[in-house]
């Protein structure tokens, strides 16, 4: 690792100030960033630790939405997000217990790994990502592999998820990394169904709109039968070809619908 200093602000305002320094970077739970630093793939001179910021903690529910602080760990979501059980279960399925005790919602969404779980939940739920500067709709937030709408030094302070009538997340685990080889999140709202897919596409998480239309008209596994997702643009690697991933999308979407019945 290259050398750097760690700052430990206790408010978002202090963190924003510290991040005005061009060579500074946010440190969430470190579960992605520390391995990256070890490989010398990043060289910040200052890390601004967000874990001591009380404003970024806590989970609250009001008017059909659940609001979760950007600094809340996966384990705390797994225990504390009872109002949105599918989201709690998704958090409880990330990595292993030690990773879940450190990794955070904000860190996962800021990183936008193409195989990460939370991006699928945020996109399928039509979540709103609140930063220190603005609110960003999930549809505008995810901009490709490891790319988001966040500006340099912008902090994910909280995320609000509208709670659906029903939801299911089907994760086909890649056993070596414990990330999703493919994951499909289906969420059913009064005004329609949203389907988000992670782990499959080179551009990262995306909505499968054909399936959304079919399921909004007829919410049954049969409604998906005639559909198939094309393999173009899908990730192909030693763990699975692009065709295999494309095939899994439909299989997992059907499983999600059956799971919700």
């Amino acid at each position, binding site marked *: *690792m*290259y*050398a*750097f*200093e*760690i700052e*430990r602000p206790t408010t978002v305002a202090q963190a924003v100030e510290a991040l005005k320094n061009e060579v500074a970077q946010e*440190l969430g739970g*470190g*579960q992605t960033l*520390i*391995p990256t*630093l*070890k490989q010398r793939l990043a060289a910040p001179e200052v*890390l601004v*630790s967000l*874990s001591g910021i009380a404003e970024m903690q806590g989970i609250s529910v009001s008017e059909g939405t659940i609001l979760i602080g950007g600094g809340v760990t996966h*384990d705390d979501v797994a225990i504390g997000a009872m109002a949105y059980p599918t989201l709690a279960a998704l958090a409880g399925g990330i*990595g*292993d*217990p*030690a*990773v879940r*005790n*450190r990794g955070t919602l904000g860190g996962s969404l800021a990183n936008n790994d193409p195989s990460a779980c939370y991006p699928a939940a945020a996109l399928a739920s039509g979540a709103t990502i609140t930063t220190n500067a603005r609110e960003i709709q999930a549809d505008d937030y995810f901009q490709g592999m490891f790319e988001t709408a966040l500006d340099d030094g912008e902090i994910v302070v909280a995320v609000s998820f509208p709670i659906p009538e029903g939801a299911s997340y089907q994760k086909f685990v890649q056993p070596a990394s*414990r990330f999703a080889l493919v994951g499909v999140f289906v969420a059913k709202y009064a005004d329609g169904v949203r389907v988000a897919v992670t782990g499959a596409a080179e551009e990262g998480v995306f909505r499968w709109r054909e399936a959304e239309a079919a399921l909004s008209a007829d919410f049954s596994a049969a409604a998906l039968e005639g559909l198939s997702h094309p393999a173009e643009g899908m990730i192909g690697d030693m763990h699975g070809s692009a065709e295999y991933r494309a095939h899994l999308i439909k299989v997992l979407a059907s499983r999600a619908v059956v799971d919700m019945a």
Partner: protein
Amino acid sequence: MAKVSMSVNGKPAEAEVEGRLLLSHFLRDNLGLTGTHIGCDTSQCGTCVVHVDGKVVKSCTMFAAEAEGKEVTTIEGMANPDGSLSKIQAAFQTHHGLQCGFCTPGMVMSTVALLKQNPDPSETEIRDYLEGNICRCTGYHNIVKAIQSAAAS
């Protein structure tokens, strides 16, 4: 450099540390607590698992500076006050839950956390919880047996 002070196995520990110093290195090199092992250094194997404020973390994936004000417990803090093996450690010994022993400190630390949260886990729950602890000797069957016996006693 940052000043950091924490409690390790109930004793105060203080130091001036570089930002990049990992908790695993702080424990081993600064404090001489070499029971915490470093197997992979890439967050995969769990030999470096310790408790921070009672929760399992991979000490190779946390900076020492981030343990400021926290209670850290390592394998050295696991024995009974008279120095004899704790229930869980004794169960690993009785059931041959170790071969080379390299993964054992992390396995024990994870087991302590599991049984605190779930005193009567099923075999599936045990295997699930230990997902992040890898045994290069692949001694998993006896590790699971040791944990089942510790849970039952």
